[in-house]
């Protein structure tokens, strides 16, 4: 064993705690601001300790919204974000797992061509084809709809590749065994392959949910109606007005609420999160 230098160990603890402080400070400050009075913050007289307006601010944020800029309750923005994130995560997993199944367990003309067509989508994020995609979505009358929010973001190959890789490692004997039991392609998929893929699906879900919840540029372009706003868009609109008019406690409460679901997912499902992150390399 390499020697454990006494001082080095203390240094390590100190350095890590400084790192944690750097990482946590902006969030702590946001929480503190969300519990204080707007006038104090606007004067630059903000205290570094939580104030007494916690319930008042969060009640107003979730159920009422700001009085100026958007006037949309953050509760409904969170609902939109949730629907979008779930559609992206579940939609992508569903269409990817069946297409990976087809590519791995069947031989058919154009199999590799189709695989490559899907594979290439890995390369280009939606940001680079943003306006042409906008035009299509608008031609299909999908602006301000959940389908418009999620479909273009489902068009990517990460999940398909992951499932394909996983299916390749599933022993052939399993298929032969279930065939002897008289199972067709549907039964085999449902009774054997899906249960085996559970961990992979969960890890992927964690990553895709976070990516979906945190989408910004795309929802910014295609939502025009206030009631279709996601929380990420809502928070931006709240600070558009000049400094003096910005209701900082509500903005900060919205920031805290916007962080809660994805951070909770990371912390509660840490093992799956790390696994999903390493596998998708996203």
């Amino acid at each position, binding site marked *: 064993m390499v020697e454990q230098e006494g001082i080095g160990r203390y240094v390590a603890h100190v350095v*890590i705690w400084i790192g944690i402080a750097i990482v946590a400070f902006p969030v702590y400050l946001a929480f503190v601001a969300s519990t204080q009075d707007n006038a104090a913050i606007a*004067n630059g007289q903000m205290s570094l300790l939580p104030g007494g307006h916690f319930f008042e601010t969060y009640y107003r944020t979730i159920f009422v919204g700001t009085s100026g800029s958007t006037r949309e309750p953050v509760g409904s923005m969170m609902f939109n974000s949730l629907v979008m994130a779930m559609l992206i995560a579940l939609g992508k997993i569903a269409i990817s797992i069946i297409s990976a199944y087809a590519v791995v367990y069947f031989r058919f003309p154009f199999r590799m061509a189709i695989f490559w067509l899907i594979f290439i989508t890995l390369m280009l994020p939606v940001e680079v084809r943003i306006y042409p995609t906008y035009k299509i979505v608008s031609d299909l009358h999908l602006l301000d709809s959940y389908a418009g929010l999620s479909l273009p973001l489902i068009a990517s190959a990460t999940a398909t590749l992951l499932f394909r890789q996983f299916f390749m490692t599933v022993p052939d004997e399993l298929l032969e065994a279930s065939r002897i039991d008289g199972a067709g392609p549907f039964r085999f998929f449902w009774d054997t392959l899906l249960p085996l893929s559970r961990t992979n699906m969960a890890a992927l879900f964690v990553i895709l949910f976070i990516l979906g919840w945190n989408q910004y540029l795309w929802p910014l372009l295609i939502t025009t109606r206030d009631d279709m706003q996601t929380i990420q868009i809502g928070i931006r609109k709240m600070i558009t007005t000049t400094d003096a008019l910005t209701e900082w406690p509500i903005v900060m409460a919205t920031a805290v609420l916007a962080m809660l679901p994805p*951070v909770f997912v990371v912390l509660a499902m840490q093992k799956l999160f790390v696994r999903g992150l*390493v596998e998708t390399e996203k």
Partner: protein
Amino acid sequence: MQKQAIFQSRWLPYALVAPQLAIVLVFFYWPAAQAVLQSFLVQDAFGLSSTFVWFENYRELLSQPDYFDAIVRTFVFSFAIALSSLSLALLLAVMADRPLRGGTLYRTLLIWPYAVAPPVVGVLWIFMLNPSLGVISHGLRTIGIDWNPLLDGGQAALLIVLAAAWKQISYNFLFFLAGLQSIPKSVIEAAAIDGARPTRRFWTVTFPLLSPTIFFLLVVNIVYAFFETFGIIDTMTRGGPAKATETLVYKVYQDGLLGGNLGGSAAQSVILMIIVILLTAVQFRFVERKVTY
């Protein structure tokens, strides 16, 4: 790379790939093709007809000083973000990669910012560093620094880099920690027996063994800085002051909002596509090397 045990069916495989294929064709290939096609066209003033002009849109775009500045700026931002975030994350990972009490707690406390959305990152940082009410700006002013990122382009750029690097620490930390833990302990011990001190051990043994991870993360971070910083820039500076924080993606967005020059906007998209494809190609080459490493 092929399964021996397979199913036979004439129609089923097509039905299974159909949903994904449809979405990919409609929302990926069609818009990408449109962008490429439009980048070669010029529309007349009424948008009624268009003429094929070869690379005229590209020539015009690249001759704009604004566009050239945005390219340089984007690369400078990317490297600044990648390097600052990578070095801090590496330091933390090296510190965490030893049998410390509270090791798993430390990991938990360091990884969660991955889940914070870019626009939220922007809001958090602009609040801390807002010239009139930010807590940190207050401190900066008391020590005599004239801090105003809303007017000073250099300070605005610094703000973007800091915020973007902050968000990426956790991602880099996780991959560095995994990389460090996969280095065989025997190699480090051998160096220790040879009498190498910890610092020397790090630079001559650990760091070279970590180089595949570093290279992989460098590419990922540059791609991140290209695209994910959009939300940070849009909530903090909107590309200003005086375009000091306008990156390529931000410029595509802004020029598109103004409307008008469809061909030029499409040419911008295509150039971005080419940059991403090049970066991805570099990354794939690296992945191949990692296998033989």
